[in-house]
């Protein structure tokens, strides 16, 4: 009995080991694609070890291509033009590429394997993305569930960003969270000091990153972020601006307001800030300072449900209702929105109803 058990365990282990050895050998010979040269934008050349996906190879070389699904082929964010050497289009890429993209050799970089030399076209903004180490310089409580985190960049020491950009904050493993995760937050700081990055974060119940920020992060801790990412930014025109954002959506708006102040931008601007109660309005004094410093800026806080006994005499109701009431000469305005998809969809409807052109409505939806 014991002998049989021993023999059987040995035999099965031996066969499994033999197969594993066979696989390891074949991987060494078959999957060994040798060093491959990636030529980027006809300009930069890097040599990587073949066998990984284009996405993984680029990220390893510190070229950060956006990816929400981690290379599983389900998010479609990692599109790149691969001009030469990619091989035929794979079935896993087909759902994400329309006809124009296929004709221009756009591929999903997480599905294309580096097997030979490749020629890639990477958008310039992606090449500017780097990983930064920084220390947490300050944690300021804004409301009961929103904090401002101030990070001082160490290496590299400054970040060149455009107001409206976001960064990805790396949350290390802690407690029940076993893996590192990245979460995106808009930059809220004053662009005049490129060594400081402010983030405005609202606690999401059960959220991995926000729980870490609220319960574990301390002043002095070292943190990693990468960026800058995103297409949300101010236009170059002179059209009047309407900002609509609530809660932590203020982040990119605050950055844009600082920028307008630094560049003496004279555009007319109005900011509708929605909150549920008067004590959820924050940075009121900063906003009032902007009203003094900027050429033509009006701050309109909107409280959804002021408590019975409050002395609130400002706008009430939903922020979209306040916009409906308060925005005059709407068709001339450009709109910049930041918030939850529900709020943004509602605001877009209201703005279109008031006559704002759809092409002049810009937004940053929280994923």
């Amino acid at each position: 009995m014991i002998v049989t058990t021993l023999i059987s365990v040995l035999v099965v282990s031996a066969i499994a080991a033999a197969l594993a050895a066979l696989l390891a050998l074949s991987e060494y010979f078959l999957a060994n694609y040798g060093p491959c040269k990636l030529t980027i934008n006809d300009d930069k050349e890097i040599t990587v070890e073949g066998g990984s996906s284009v996405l993984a190879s680029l990220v390893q070389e510190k070229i950060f291509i956006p990816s929400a699904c981690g290379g599983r082929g389900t998010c479609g964010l990692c599109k790149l033009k691969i001009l030469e050497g990619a091989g035929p289009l794979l079935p896993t890429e087909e759902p994400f590429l329309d006809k124009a993209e296929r004709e221009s050799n756009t591929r999903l970089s997480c599905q294309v394997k580096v097997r030979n030399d490749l020629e890639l076209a990477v958008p310039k903004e992606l090449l500017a993305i780097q990983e930064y180490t920084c220390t947490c310089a300050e944690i300021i409580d804004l409301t009961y569930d929103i904090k401002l985190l101030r990070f001082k960049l160490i290496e590299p020491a400054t970040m060149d960003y455009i107001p409206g950009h976001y960064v990805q904050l790396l949350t290390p493993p802690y407690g029940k969270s076993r893996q590192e995760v990245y979460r995106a937050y808009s930059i809220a700081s004053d662009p005049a000091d490129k060594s400081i990055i402010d983030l405005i974060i609202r606690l999401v119940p059960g959220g991995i990153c926000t729980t870490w920020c609220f319960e574990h992060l301390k002043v002095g801790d070292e943190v990693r972020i990468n960026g800058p990412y995103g297409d949300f930014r101010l236009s170059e025109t002179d059209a009047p601006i309407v900002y609509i954002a609530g809660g932590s959506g203020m982040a990119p708006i605050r950055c844009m307001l600082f920028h307008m102040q630094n560049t003496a931008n004279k555009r007319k601007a109005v900011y509708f800030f929605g909150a549920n109660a008067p004590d959820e309005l924050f940075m009121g004094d900063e906003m009032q300072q902007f009203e003094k410093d900027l050429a033509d800026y009006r701050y309109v806080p909107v409280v959804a449900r002021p408590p019975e006994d409050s002395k609130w005499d400002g706008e009430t109701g939903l922020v979209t209702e306040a916009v409906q009431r308060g925005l005059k000469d709407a068709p001339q305005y450009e709109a910049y929105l930041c918030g939850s998809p529900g709020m943004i969809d509602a605001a877009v409807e209201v703005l279109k109803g008031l006559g704002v052109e759809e092409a002049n409505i810009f937004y940053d939806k929280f994923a």
Partner: protein
Amino acid sequence: MNLGPEIGHALAVCVAAIFTQNILLAYFLGLCPFIGVSREVKTAFGLGLAVIFVMVSTTLLNWLAYHYVLVPLGLEFFRFIMFIIIIAAFVQFVEMAIERFSPFLYQQLGVFLPLITVNCAILGASLFMVIRNYSFIVTIGYGLGSSVGWFLAIMAMAGIRQRLANDRIPRGLQGPGITLIIAGLMALAFIGFTGVLQGK
């Protein structure tokens, strides 16, 4: 060994496995990728080809492993673990080889190969081969027949679903729901084939 009757037996088993004992429509094995990948004829074709290749190869490999390793050592009860290990290792190896040597083949069926490892029709075919005590030649016929039968079923399903793509199906039945109903109807149709072999 006398080859004539062997080959005759193999052919009979092959035909039976395609029509009357279709591993999918009669034994309901391999339903997961059947429902999941049968929306378009093109992808069904790639997956079907991959299943044919893997099923024929693994039934033969498993036959060898069973009769020359497990039986002599009296370890028949290990066949479940053994077969799965062999199937998984084989599929890994083939995927690496195809990716290296034929980008075209890799495009057609390479991405489906990992999906096939967990296709229970593959393991099922090997286990049936053991239960029914098929010889090596007959196993070739059985593996080929089973996989071609599976291929036929998924191609037929893909054709039907492609036709239905623009029709209005009640919301609760869209996707897997209507597919299972169609599969049931196809299974009923294939039962009609059993009459063909009754004469023997």
